[in-house]
């Protein structure tokens, strides 16, 4: 590992000011950054430890208008927030189904949003990777791409966005408050992550030195009938092959609101407004759910060994919609 300067920040203002130097990275749980530093994929000149900033860990889920979740709150704690469990099960489930309890105890809900891809070519230094070394080529295109994206890829990169939490948050129109040298600003989560395009090394829209301080989720009638359904190679402690966050609201049998986002299949958290529109204004049926799933994947481009993700993804969406609807019935 390359040497780096380590410092701790006691406040958000201190952290932002310390991050002004080029090559500085924030350290919270460290589960992605420190791991990638060991692999020489990340080599920051300086690391500012924000894990002890008390104001970052504040969680307020009691308000009528929105959930407020401090970026420094731990994944394991937010996963068990009683309001999330009752009113936004998709959010709680997306956290509980991520990683292991040890990792969830370390990792923060802010850092998790920018977890980097698990593409083996990105993590290993023996192969070209445009994300790790821009312009060197993509080894996954035509290579071992069983786990790679079928949505949002480019000629430069098909690495999957690995997270679950951001997928569920995207379905709920979450907002991200960030602090930077010029003060605070708000970024819709839908504008936080980028598709790889020609610049796969640029994964998000934050400026250098900007720190995620909190996540806000506007209240919605579709919260209670929601689920995060995750399909993986083993039952627990694995990344998604395909996942879906589904949230529904009903008037009698008729769907009045539908929210749908998928993970494990795309280069960024992926929402389909087209699929949502197909669900609204009619009862949820096997046909309408299937049509929604197919709409999500209508633009899918498979690689060599990941064509299965299209049918798996469609079925994951269908299952998620019925699991979400069942929560409404059980109330």
């Amino acid at each position: 590992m390359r040497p780096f300067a380590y410092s701790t920040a006691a406040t958000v203002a201190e952290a932002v000011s310390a991050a002004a130097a080029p090559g500085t990275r924030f350290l919270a749980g460290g589960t992605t950054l420190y791991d990638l530093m060991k692999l020489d994929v990340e080599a920051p000149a300086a690391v500012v430890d924000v894990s002890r900033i008390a104001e970052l860990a504040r969680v307020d889920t009691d308000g009528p208008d929105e959930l407020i979740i401090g970026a420094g709150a731990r994944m394991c704690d937010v996963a068990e927030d009683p309001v999330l469990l009752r009113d936004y099960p998709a959010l709680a489930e997306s956290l509980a189904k991520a990683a292991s309890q040890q990792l969830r105890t370390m990792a923060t809900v802010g850092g998790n949003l920018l977890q980097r891809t698990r593409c083996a070519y990105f993590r290993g230094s023996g192969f070209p990777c445009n994300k790790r070394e821009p312009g060197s080529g993509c080894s996954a295109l035509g290579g071992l791409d069983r786990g790679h994206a079928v949505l949002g890829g480019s000629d430069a990169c098909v690495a999957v966005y690995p997270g679950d939490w951001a997928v569920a948050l995207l379905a709920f129109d979450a907002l991200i408050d960030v602090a930077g040298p010029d003060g605070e600003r708000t970024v819709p989560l839908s504008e936080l992550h980028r598709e790889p395009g020609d610049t796969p090394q640029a994964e998000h829209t934050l400026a250098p030195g900007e720190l995620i301080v909190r996540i806000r989720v506007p209240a919605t009638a579709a919260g209670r009938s929601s689920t995060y359904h995750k399909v993986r190679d083993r039952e627990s402690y694995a990344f998604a092959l395909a996942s879906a966050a589904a949230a529904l609201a009903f008037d009698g049998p008729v769907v009045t609101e539908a929210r749908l986002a998928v993970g494990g299949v795309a280069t960024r958290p992926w929402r389909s407004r087209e699929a949502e529109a197909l669900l609204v204004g009619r009862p949820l049926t096997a046909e309408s759910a299937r049509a929604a799933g197919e709409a999500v994947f209508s633009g899918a481009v498979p690689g060599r060994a990941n064509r299965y993700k299209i049918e798996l993804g469609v079925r994951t969406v269908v299952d998620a919609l019925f699991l979400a609807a069942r929560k409404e019935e059980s109330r």
Partner: protein
Amino acid sequence: MRAKIVVNGVGTELELDARESLLDVLRERLELTGTKKGCDHGQCGACTVHLDGRRVLACLTMAVQADGREVTTIEGVSGDGGGLHPMQRAFVDHDALQCGYCTPGQIMAAIACVAEGHAGDDDQIREYMSGNLCRCGAYPGIVAAVREVARGGVRPEEA
């Protein structure tokens, strides 16, 4: 940088290189080799320890992040008289290991699993123990051991 870490109840002052993991400091400098290095990348759970009472992976914890905090390792779980912790006793009773390499991490995770209230039934135990891999496949014994301790079935050994 200078750091003070309380390890198994004993305050220790150390001059740390920021690159050092808590795992390497425990094993190489404090000679507490009970905590095992498996993958060193947060994938196997062999290095599980408690930091301020909560389970974490020592391999993905920078040692400097433990400054001013309390670490408990497998060497620190036995009673005052040196007898086995109830979870250790249960692992022995249920044959919850074969080669034993993952066992210290399993036991640290298992103690936390019970303390967190995540050992309500076998499915929940499997889910909350999934971060600890056992290449020998002693999982049935591990689940049985955690279940027994969660139900209060094992008493600490008299020292």
